[in-house]
């Protein structure tokens, strides 16, 4: 579904990484680790097409990223659910509308979406908070809401950038279980994190590959993890 071949990315004259390869196949589960500043977020942005690689090939659902028109890229993004580290909500809209935003922009806000939305809110445990504005929510609630928004269109790939960065261990576990549940439904999952405990916890639930971005290269992480 998403394939990176020999990809390099240069920012401000400095090469962040090069010769990088990655394939996100249906049902795959990947963790991406690495020190701060290694380029994890940049790599994720390449995966969902927000950035364009300076060299190499990024293929999104069979189409080379550079060949995609702006409209085609927008349509491609609807097939990728993204959970950002800082969640990125529209603070003036209630939580339910924020979660339904991908449906709204896709032009299908009605139909069975209301039922889907209710189920989704219940799934992430946010039924009571549906009418609240994002700034009124806790960090954990925002992260779960971001996950709900990422999956409302039933995307093929879910990409999460430090999804447990601002939440406690119990909430991290809960979020991880939700992601594993989605993976069992056949979704490809890619999570960037420096939370090794989370990776260890996941190993008991799912067969996950752990990749480490270090020294401008992507490596398989050691068995120590």
């Amino acid at each position, binding site marked *: 579904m998403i394939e990176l071949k020999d990809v390099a990315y240069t920012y401000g004259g400095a090469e962040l990484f090069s010769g990088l390869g990655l394939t996100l196949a249906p049902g795959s589960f990947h963790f991406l680790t690495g020190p701060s500043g290694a380029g994890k977020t940049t790599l994720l942005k390449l995966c*969902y097409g927000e950035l364009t690689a300076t060299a190499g090939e990024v293929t999104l659902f069979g189409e080379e990223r550079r060949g995609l028109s702006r409209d085609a890229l927008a349509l491609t993004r609807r097939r990728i659910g*993204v959970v950002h580290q800082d969640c990125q*909500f529209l603070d003036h809209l209630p939580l339910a509308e924020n979660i339904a*935003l991908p449906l*709204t*922009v*896709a032009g299908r806000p009605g139909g069975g979406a209301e039922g889907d939305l209710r189920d989704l809110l219940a799934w992430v445990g946010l039924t009571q908070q549906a009418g609240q504005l994002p700034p009124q929510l806790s960090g954990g609630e925002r992260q779960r809401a971001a996950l709900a928004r990422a999956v409302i269109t039933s995307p093929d790939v879910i990409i999460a950038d430090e999804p447990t960065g601002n939440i406690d261990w119990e909430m991290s576990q809960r979020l991880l279980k939700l992601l594993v549940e989605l993976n069992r439904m056949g979704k490809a999952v890619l999570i960037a994190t420096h939370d090794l405990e989370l990776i260890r916890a996941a190993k008991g639930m799912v067969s996950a590959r752990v990749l480490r971005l270090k020294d401008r290269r992507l490596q398989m992480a050691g068995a120590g993890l």
Partner: protein
Amino acid sequence: MPVLPRLLSLVTGDRGADRAVPPSGFTSWLTLGAAAAMAFLAVFALAFSAATGRLADRWSEELARTSTLRISAPAEEMAAQTAAALRVLGQTPGVAEAHALTAEEQEALLAPWFGPDLPLDSLPLPQLVEIVEEGEGFDPAGLRARLVAEVPGAVLDDHARWREPLVAAAGRLRLLATLSTLLIGAALVAMVTLAVQSSLAANAQIIRVLRLVGARDVYIARAFVRRFTMRALLGALGGTVLGTAALLILPRSDVAGGFLTGLGFAGASWLLPLTIPPVAAIAAFWASRSAALTRLRAES
């Protein structure tokens, strides 16, 4: 999408797109107020254009259809030469009517300069004959040649010498008024463009979120375009109503006289101000759509 559904969707709006972008107080009032002010000025520019157009037509029509024959002769020959002139004019093709001004009419003509009770008898004034033309009018060169032979004291003034500069002046005034209307439209377009750009900059984070969830540029632009178009339409509507009301309370020309008091519309031209709000809305639609799409494309 066909034009009509697009226009309807512009009026009814897309609730999702509208709600995604919060209304911005500053740009909202700026657009509304500027559109109202521009429409108010446009009403006057159009009225000025219409008034100068009427003036040019009137001058052109009145002066083109009439000529004056001036007969200067000794008092004892005046009556004979006037009669000869009237006879010549009566035989000239293109002359509908020739009328020798009476003493009272000549006195009325001179009254604005010399005041009433002018002793015309004691002044060696020429006899004036007003000529009204018909059809294609008369041949001035031929008439002059005949008058030289039969009425030696007659001088024909077909008004061409001073009609043309007057009509040209009125035409230039009309051009200026039209230019003013176009400049007002251009100022509205510039103002809407700046307001849209300001609004896009203020909502950069919202645009980023919309993009990340798969919104196309057209979807994002639609929220801004509809909002600015409707604001321009409402503002222009208000400005047009105020401008038209201001024109209506101006003194009427038949009461006060003069060109400036004749500023306004006549007959069907009263419908002209009705074109201002839709034209302002179209200009705002075009400007906001163009500004939004250009900016969104430049940001990627």
